[in-house]
């Protein structure tokens, strides 16, 4: 029901035009406030702290929607931060997660931070504690990728420190992006299917050609597999497990290439134009494939855990699905 309520807002307030405007540098606060004032930032905060105490599996639907609407704000991260930080500790900021953290002579550096270009706070993990940085005095290092809101961040001011719950931040970063990828894929797939049914060549819609049908069938397989792989990271408990998140992020990231490729192949040249909406989703798919580790990062993590487990592969994945 939270997902439906959020979608009502996104449908009106997060249109493709709004996404483009924010990516072009417009003030994101109008969209941010609309969502924050409706209380959505507190979905994962415990009920004792005035939050909704939303179970993880229901939160998956919310994260999926944020991907589906290509929301150009670190909303998923800001929501999850309420579950990572102690009650009342989360700032009223546009907060994002740092995939990595490096100590430097005069401060800290966080490379490739999703939404690093606009975030006002960053949560990072130094292996001992969670570090909460205020971006007020941060140096932002844009990636230079057109329309991207990712950026590196350099901090000199001391962060706030909070107790760390194992690798929870790492798992959240991966799981959230798996869900975002699944959401953006679903939208790219719908657009592609619709285009295949509408675009006519040689006197019939291109979706009537067997070659196109088979491409769309394979795309559907990848999208369905990604959706369930992502969903599996949002199981019981209050936070995604690291290996569940690893399976989710690895599988969805790997699907990005065939899914984006087919979406564009079926659309023909119009699909890569700035004016057509498909790029809002496929650009994100490519960027999110890397965010918080691509499949090349997570596959060895999973492989090592499987070898260490001593178990046959089916037992290994089943135990993770049950946990």
């Amino acid at each position, binding site marked *: 029901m939270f997902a439906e309520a959020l979608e009502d807002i996104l449908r009106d307030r997060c249109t493709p035009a709004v996404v483009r405007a924010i990516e072009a540098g417009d003030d994101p606060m109008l969209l941010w406030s609309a969502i924050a004032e409706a209380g959505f930032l507190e979905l994962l905060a415990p009920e004792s702290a005035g939050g909704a105490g939303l179970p993880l599996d229901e939160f998956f639907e919310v994260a999926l929607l944020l991907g589906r609407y290509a929301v150009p704000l670190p909303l998923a991260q800001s929501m999850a931060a309420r579950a990572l930080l102690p009650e009342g500790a989360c700032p009223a900021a546009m907060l994002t997660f740092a995939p990595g953290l490096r100590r430097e002579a005069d401060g800290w550096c966080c490379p490739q931070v999703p939404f690093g270009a606009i975030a006002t706070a960053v949560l990072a993990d130094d292996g001992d504690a969670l570090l909460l940085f205020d971006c007020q005095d941060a140096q932002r290092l844009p990636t230079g990728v057109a329309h991207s809101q990712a950026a590196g961040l350099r901090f000199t001011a001391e962060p706030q420190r909070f107790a760390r719950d194992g690798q929870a931040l790492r798992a959240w970063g991966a799981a959230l992006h798996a869900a975002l990828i699944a959401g953006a894929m679903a939208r790219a797939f719908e657009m592609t299917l619709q285009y295949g049914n509408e675009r006519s060549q040689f006197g019939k819609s291109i979706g009537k050609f*067997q070659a196109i049908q088979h491409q769309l*069938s394979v795309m559907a397989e990848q999208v369905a597999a*990604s959706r*369930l792989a992502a969903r599996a990271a949002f199981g019981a408990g209050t936070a995604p497990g690291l290996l569940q998140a690893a*399976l989710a992020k690895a599988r969805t990231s790997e699907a990005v290439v065939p899914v984006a490729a087919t979406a564009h192949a079926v659309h023909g040249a119009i699909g890569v134009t700035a004016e057509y909406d498909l790029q809002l989703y496929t650009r994100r798919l490519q960027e999110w494939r890397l965010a918080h580790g691509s499949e090349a990062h997570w596959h*060895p993590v999973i*492989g090592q855990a499987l070898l260490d487990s001593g178990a046959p592969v089916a037992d290994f994945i089943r135990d993770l*699905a049950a946990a």
Partner: protein
Amino acid sequence: MANLLDNFAYATVPPHAQAFRAEVRDFLATEMPTLPADVRARSWMGFDAGFSRRLAARGWVGVTLPQEFGGAALDAFSRFVLVEELLTAGAPVAGHWIADRQSGPLIAKYGTPAQKAFYLPRICAGEAFFCIGMSEPNSGSDLASVGTRATPAADGGWRLNGRKIWTTNAQNCQYMIALVRSSGDPQDRQKGLSQFIVDLSLPGVTVRPIEDLTGDAHFTEVFFDDVSLAADALVGAEGQGWEQVNAELAFERSGPERLYSSIVLLDRWIEVLRDSPDASRHLATVGRFAAHLAALRHLSVSCTARLAAGESPVIEAALVKDIGTTFEQEIPAVISALLGEDPQADVDAELLRTCAYVSQVAPTYSLRGGTREILRGMIARGLGLR
């Protein structure tokens, strides 16, 4: 259209089926013969009547059939667990496999009371093994063009003429359920097709095994030369064979059998890696296979939940089968390349034999139970493209 993807709701195996897994494991620990990996890799081609009968004695052949016929009346999830355990162990299931999965449920659904009373208890006792007669020399993927014909006889029975090919394991089975033309002609396509239970010991039936490239002979060609069938050989309604066959294929396509055909090879390779000094070089490959299998299993469990709810997820099953066989075929392709990485290296002989066998038969994974091209066409239909 997008409904097709929405139909894959996330589901988990419920506790009763999880608990059942322990029972299956106990059984396999004592009753499964000790076999090398290259023999276990044959699993659903592996015929062992003794094993099938021990499984039947334990109550696990005809697992979804009603108890009044000797079945275990287990739900789709328990069957999923049983099959998953049998296949990951590489158990020889060919004997009872088709009867348990397809023929038994088909007879239970469409058979007359007399047919049920005769066949189902025999299936559940491991006494009646079945094979499926669908393909013919000129009708494989174009199943509606089957030409084997049952002609009404004066005594109310039928005369059967024609032949079936690629029939798995007919030489070890007592019965075949054959899809044949009972009225009209091949131009009528799906109309006029019926399913018949053919007793393979009848005069006029000849079974000829076909040796395959691995040296095995699991496939057969079956000839019907004026075979006299009794009236009660017909299953279901005359002319309704096409609908019946399609309902049957939903059982075949979505289950764990479409994920685990190469699993014995993958597990054997991982075991060898665990003892190898250069395992670290292969972590990414191992992890990738695990990630793929995890996602596939979620898809398969999602379909199983629909079956358990009494639905018939035909299109969804086609989707699972197509992506599942892609995974099953990638395993031998990748492992084979890695085994040949260093021409000077010794390769574990059992692993090599397993990899060779799986590599050689892997092309059949996307043929059996509906070819890749047919399945993709079905998915496209489900997406509203045709």
